[in-house]
């Protein structure tokens, strides 16, 4: 093992895990003094082209409270055909199928390179994937047209045997029956009325009707036993029908008078979608895909009234407690999200509008169920179209990059307990010996449900070292953690992915250097950022910032080298050196700052931040600014471009220069999900503000003249620059007053 950097990278590639600390402080007390908690970013379904699933089921520890999976860390007695669980030390008999086991004939799960292994489970009925489109019809004509085309296109991308359903809404909510020939049939619901799941199922006729006395004719044997087949049909059967239906879809016909918003029953539509799936396909992989072009304006879950003169709530309103619908609406969507999660379904929100659409209130639907949240200006943009297409991209095996209904089960060795998780998951409330009483994120459980996930979905998982200071761990002792993820693969198979990792324990007194060196500052920054964002959802913004600052100062105090009261003496080792910079950017990021962002935008950014993997998260915290230049001042390039030099053959190299960032941008755009907002701007251009808000304000109107000669425009902000921030940080770190 060469360096920790390599170790970290190798571990990430193999196991999809990044720990904040890769050598663990061996006692509770010392661990808490480390400031950054022992935690990891786990990408449960990290793509592993080199890891074909094994075709059998995992061997479990027989202790009912443990049930850990046999793994390379287990001690095996090949002669006695016994293995010892490395978590609870239970000795277990191998199952009969392992009769031939020996040192030279090991099953994969015992080989060290299979610290991550995937099992394929053959049992159980496979149910097809379900895609339920919930479509807003209160759109502008061209928006609706674009959306219809996207939806029609998506039919060809869906797995052919997937079940598909359609709900449209506006003033009313229509659940379309897809099975009928001739007359197209839909069930219509009032958009203002909250209905229970039972009522919805009754009204959709999903509950078995009482048979009349006379049997009209023998019941036709049906392909699907579910009554719901009327609303959810295999896409290969009805794609023509559905294409036509989508084609005939009209804008909501109810008149919208001047000065009013269209009446949009998003709350009821979602409620019906949830109720429909709940009653018919509980615990199977299903996506509810909500496409909305504006805020819910009536019924349960309404976010704003239909009077245009009253604008939708802003952060200002929320602070002033002036958002009259927010709490009630949030409660409605939370209730739906929890029900959906309980059924293992997920909700995607595709919101395309120039104004806010109520993502703040609806965010929990995507956050708790692992659904996607996409925000755009219009359905008629490539941002939406390509993002939507990318949902249906396939991996190297030709499988959809989506998985459903996952359960993440975590086991730890005795010295560790689980404090919580932050990510697109809900707690399953499974208490056990390895569950800590101190919660970080969603805690109090050792299992979480992740209803929708893809190969990049990443959870932050926080641990607590519980080993007491006076019970030292022997030299060379290792702590282990096992992540067991049950999920429904997009091929509808049930699979189990098991990742078992181990790290060395180290005594802080004697081995602080080791621990320091094994610090993963990137992971730590993201994990701290997740904690910060998680707090920001429930706490006031300034409190969160203060907390982050304090943590940073404490970290610097703990790991910095300095003389007391001498800021200039302050140094950080390489493994910590970037961390303050990450924090600087995090403080300014839209994940924590709401200034200049609408509540919807904040929700959107936070949603994505809480599910992206480390690399993406880091980029989101600290943007990357690539520079392309002829070594001239940038405004000249803009002038040249305006002058059209790029179109002249003799300036072809200029054309290439202009093209280079565009090409790179395309590359980046293709690699990300959801597709980022792509802004092509120039010096002094109106859109340049988006760029300027992201860069380090080393030069502002406040210090422009103080700094003197430097060329380049000032950035109009009151934010401090990184330089000022660092100076201040040093001062505080070395201060003994803190």
């Amino acid at each position, binding site marked *: 093992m060469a360096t920790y950097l390599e170790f970290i990278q190798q571990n990430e590639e193999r196991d999809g895990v990044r720990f904040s600390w890769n050598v663990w402080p061996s006692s509770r007390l010392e661990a808490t003094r480390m400031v950054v908690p022992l935690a990891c970013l786990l990408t449960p379904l990290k793509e592993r082209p080199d890891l074909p699933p094994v075709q059998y089921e995992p061997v479990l520890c027989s202790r009912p409270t443990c049930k850990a999976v046999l793994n390379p860390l287990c001690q095996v007695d090949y002669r006695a055909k016994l293995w010892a669980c490395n978590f609870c030390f239970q000795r277990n008999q191998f199952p009969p199928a392992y009769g031939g086991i020996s040192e030279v004939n090991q099953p994969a799960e015992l080989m060290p390179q299979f610290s991550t292994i995937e099992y394929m489970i053959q049992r159980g009925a496979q149910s097809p994937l379900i895609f339920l489109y919930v479509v807003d019809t209160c759109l502008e004509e061209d928006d609706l047209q674009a959306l219809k085309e996207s939806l029609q296109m998506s039919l060809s991308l869906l797995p052919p045997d997937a079940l598909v359903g359609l709900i449209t809404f506006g003033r*009313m909510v*229509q659940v379309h029956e897809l099975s*009928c020939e*001739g*007359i*197209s*049939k*839909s*069930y*219509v*619901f*009032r958009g203002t*009325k909250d*209905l229970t799941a039972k009522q919805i199922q*009754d*009204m*959709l*006729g999903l509950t078995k*009707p009482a*048979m*009349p006395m*006379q049997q*009209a*004719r023998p019941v036709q044997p049906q392909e699907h036993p579910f009554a719901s087949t009327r609303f959810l049909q295999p896409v290969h059967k009805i794609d023509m029908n559905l294409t036509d239906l989508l084609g*005939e879809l*009209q804008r909501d*016909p*109810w*008149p919208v008078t001047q000065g009013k918003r269209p009446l949009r029953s998003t709350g009821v539509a979602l409620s019906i979608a949830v109720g429909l799936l709940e009653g018919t396909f509980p615990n199977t992989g299903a996506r509810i895909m909500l496409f909305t072009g504006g805020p819910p304006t009536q019924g349960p879950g309404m976010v704003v009234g239909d009077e245009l003169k009253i604008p939708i709530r802003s952060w200002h309103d929320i602070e002033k407690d002036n958002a009259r619908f927010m709490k009630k609406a949030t409660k409605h969507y939370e209730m739906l999200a929890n029900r959906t999660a309980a059924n293992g379904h997920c909700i995607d929100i595709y919101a395309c509008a120039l104004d806010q659409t109520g993502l703040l209130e609806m965010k929990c639907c995507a956050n708790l169920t692992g659904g996607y949240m996409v925000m755009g200006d219009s359905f008629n943009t490539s941002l939406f179209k390509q993002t939507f297409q990318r949902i249906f991209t396939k991996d190297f095996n030709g499988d959809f990059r989506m998985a459903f209904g996952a359960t993440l089960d975590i086991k730890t060795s005795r010295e560790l307990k689980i404090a919580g998780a932050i990510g697109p998951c809900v707690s399953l409330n499974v208490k056990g010996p390895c569950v800590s009483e101190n919660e970080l994120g969603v805690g109090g459980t050792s299992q979480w449900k992740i209803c929708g996930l893809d190969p990049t979905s990443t959870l932050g998982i926080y641990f607590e070292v519980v080993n007491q200071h006076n019970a030292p761990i022997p030299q060379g002792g290792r702590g282990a953690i096992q992540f067991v993820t049950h999920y429904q693969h997009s091929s509808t198979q049930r699979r189990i992915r098991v990742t078992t990792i181990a790290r060395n324990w180290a005594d802080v007194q004697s081995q602080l250097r080791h621990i320091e060196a094994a610090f993963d500052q990137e992971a730590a920054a993201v994990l701290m950022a997740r904690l910060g964002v998680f707090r920001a959802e429930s706490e006031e913004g300034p409190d969160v910032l203060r907390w982050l600052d304090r943590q940073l100062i404490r970290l610097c105090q703990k790991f910095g080298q300095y003389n007391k009261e001498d800021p200039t003496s302050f140094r950080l080792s390489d493994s910590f050196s970037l961390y303050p910079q990450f924090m600087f950017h995090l403080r300014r990021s839209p994940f924590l700052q709401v200034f200049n962002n609408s509540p919807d935008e904040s929700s959107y950014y936070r949603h994505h931040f809480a599910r992206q993997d480390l690399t993406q998260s880091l980029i989101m915290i600290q943007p990357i600014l690539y520079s392309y230049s002829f070594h001239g001042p940038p405004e000249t390039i803009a002038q040249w471009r305006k002058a059209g030099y790029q179109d002249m053959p003799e300036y072809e190299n200029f054309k290439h220069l202009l093209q280079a960032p565009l090409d790179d941008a395309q590359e980046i755009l293709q690699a990300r999900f959801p597709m980022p907002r792509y802004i092509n701007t120039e010096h002094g251009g109106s859109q340049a503000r988006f760029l300027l808000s992201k860069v380090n304000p080393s030069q502002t109107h406040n210090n422009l003249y103080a700094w003197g000669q430097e060329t380049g425009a000032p950035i109009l902000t009151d934010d401090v620059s990184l330089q000022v921030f660092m100076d201040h940080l040093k001062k505080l770190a070395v201060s003994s007053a803190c």
Partner: protein
Amino acid sequence: MEPTMAQYQAISKHLPKVCQEPHLPRGHLQPQQHRLLVARLHMASLAKEMYRMAQAPLFRCKGPPTSLASASGSFPNSGLYGSYPQGQAPPLSQAQGHPGIQTSQRSAPSQASGFTPPASGGPRLPSMTGPLLPGQSFGGPSVSQPNHVSSPPPQTLPPGTQMTGPLGPLPPMHSPQQPGYQPQQNGSFGPARGPQPNYGSPYPAAPTFGSQSGPQPLPPKRLDPDAIPSPIQVIEDDRNNRGTEPFVTGVRGQVPPLVTTNFLVKDQGNASPRYIRCTSYNIPCTSDMAKQAQVPLAAVIKPLASLPPEEASPYVVDHGESGPLRCNRCKAYMCPFMQFIEGGRRFQCCFCSCINDVPPQYFQHLDHTGKRVDAYDRPELSLGSYEFLATVDYCKNNKFPSPPAFIFMIDVSYNAIRTGLVRLLCEELKSLLDFLPREGGAEESAIRVGFVTYNKVLHFYNVKSSLAQPQMMVVSDVADMFVPLLDGFLVNINESRAVITSLLDQIPEMFADTRETETVFVPVIQAGMEALKAAECAGKLFLFHTSLPIAEAPGKLKNRDDRKLINTDKEKTLFQPQTGAYQTLAKECVAQGCCVDLFLFPNQYVDVATLSVVPQLTGGSVYKYACFQVENDQERFLSDLRRDVQKVVGFDAVMRVRTSTGIRAVDFFGAFYMSNTTDVELAGLDGDKTVTVEFKHDDRLNEESGALLQCALLYTSCAGQRRLRIHNLALNCCTQLADLYRNCETDTLINYMAKFAYRGVLNSPVKAVRDTLITQCAQILACYRKNCASPSSAGQLILPECMKLLPVYLNCVLKSDVLQPGAEITTDDRAYVRQLVTSMDVAETNVFFYPRLLPLTKSPIESTTEPPAVRASEERLSNGDMYLLENGLNLFLWVGASVQQGVVQSLFSVSSFSQITSGLSVLPVLDNPLSKKVRGLIDSLRAQRSRYMKLIVVKQEDKLEMLFKHFLVEDKSLSGGASYVDFLCHMHKEIRQLLS
């Protein structure tokens, strides 16, 4: 100089002349000149006993009521407002259906005999045909005598008077067992009774009169039916006397010809009797007089009555933006009775005497008689009936209305599908929609149409013309109904024809396999109403419904039919709606101008009393087809449907009746809603609907100026035009009661009384209602006797000429199904009839209560006119003849057992009487004069009625005959109704009690 009323006499001699000619100077008549009906009655205690008998149950042999009801299973598809089969018992299975009850009691298998009174069957005593009673001899033949024959004063009663003496105990011979008192029975018709119905027959018995009367040692115990007033005779006389010349309405207080008479009307300032008929055309000046006479003052108004082609429909007057000219105070509309004064600059209101300025644009000079010179150019100054175009002020929300819409709402539950109703209906609608009512010469109807099907959920259809296929939208939230679509629900039929056709093709297929048996009702109407509201128009819902709405929804009903309640104080609940939800809904419908027509296809109790609330309050119609089967009932249903869809109808109407100072409209009867005491609100009003208005005095009237009525109806035409239809009628006023009695119209009186009674049963026990009617009738007649008739013995029954049919007609009302239900009448039938009568016009009530009975072979075969009717009594039937009987709802062809074989052959295409299928509903189309004539006659009868009458062929002595006999209203009825004769006796007794 034609007589206005045929002469009639019961006893003997010539009667005084009729004094009803309007041109006769009033007040010149001697009391004895009054036309009198003097009936000599041998009654006293006898009558009392007979009446009691009539009330008593007659079929003690029949077992419990349930078994009676089951007997009606024998006529499953009779087409009467019918009975339901109980269980699955086949027609003849009465005994099998109730073996425990029936078998031991009944030895004879004949069903018919089961319905025969136990004492019947014996031969009629020869004595009945023996020496004629005094009255008998004057039976049929009183050929219309000239009215002005001066005749001796009314007869002093012949010796029969003595019979009135003893009021003591009954002589033994009067006991019910005595055959002489038996009502006519099976097999008793025949030549024995002689040719009474033949009006043309000579006057046979006059000479025998004197010798027969006095010395009869044994009093003839029975009043001779021929001696009592005959409706047939009265109708016939009126036809002969008044059917030839047009009725000109120029003269105030003229009594129009009877409704049974065909006549033309010339509007010369008063509304045609087709629009308004009054109980009396001469009304007392004071309320004291009115109270004394007890004659109800009522007008039966049919504002949108259809006219024969020879008569012009009301002219439309457009007064432009200023709108119709009205009195400033009482808001009466300009009419021919308004007095122009001051050279035409002002006019005095004929109703309230207020003096109004004539607006400059309306000014016109007066001629020397004070009449405007343009009077004859302006309908509103010269005609009794006309229309104004309404201005925007007369419109809801100050907005001219949109054209109305029709919404077809079809029950597609299991029952509706199984009977083939849905398929039949959808097929018919495809062509029927081309015949929606349209205004005048409009090329296409302005009415838009929409479609809903339902069982326990509702299915709306988008039939927008741009769609390739209709779209169905299901609304299951019946607790909170709403309309799921706006655009594409109500469409122009021509634009959306392809989509609609496709829809109507698919509806029967879509629900072919339905197993849903439950239905909702209130949400369906609510949906239709909401749809109209959303479209901002008035309109009509056509509901096709099969079963009691038991599905969980507002207006859910339970089966509460309980025959045990009959004749108890709780009987009224059977007529009342189960829940208030229906009235609430109806009010909302009225506010929206949403009229509901309900077609019911029940095969068991559906609670018509509740379901008909909304149609009733919205001016709609109810049609009921019990045990509907396509093969048997399709013609009737389709015919009714076609007529109902095509008929001209006004929407969102308000009717107000204004009167001269002195009387006031105080009560209203009909299918409408009233939110205050003066305005009759009608969501819809068609040409068949009638509103009966009762007036009361609130001041003195003036003989000079008479009494004026103005009925103003504000409505939206079927093209969406807002209009006012005005009918004016001037009546005379009198200070002499005799004038009142001389200008009454019994048919209208009966119309009023029936409606009054039928409303009464909602609040009072049926018995009390009947007693009220009898008492009122007795008071009317007693008042006449006391004040107008010449002094005579108390034993004489003296009836005013105009009211001589009052007892017989009243008896028909009293023994009608609502007021005296027989065992075979279901609760639904009673409720159905009750609400039907509520909006019937005079002609309809006339034939409904006293059915027409037409002999088929008596008149020459080549005669093209309807044969003269005979009285509705079994003894008028000859077993060698065939008869048609109709009452506006039912049509029977009764075939006598001894009808000639040739006749049977030429009508039924079978060789003998026994081969005729009982219950047949269609006559074979045969090419012979008799068949053509009978079928033609049936067609013409049907054409006269607003509802299709399904034919039922009844054979003499057949089990179906019981149904038929129910309509022989002069006879004692199985349900205990008195015979005419008995009732007359009873009435006489009542009068005498009042007089003494």
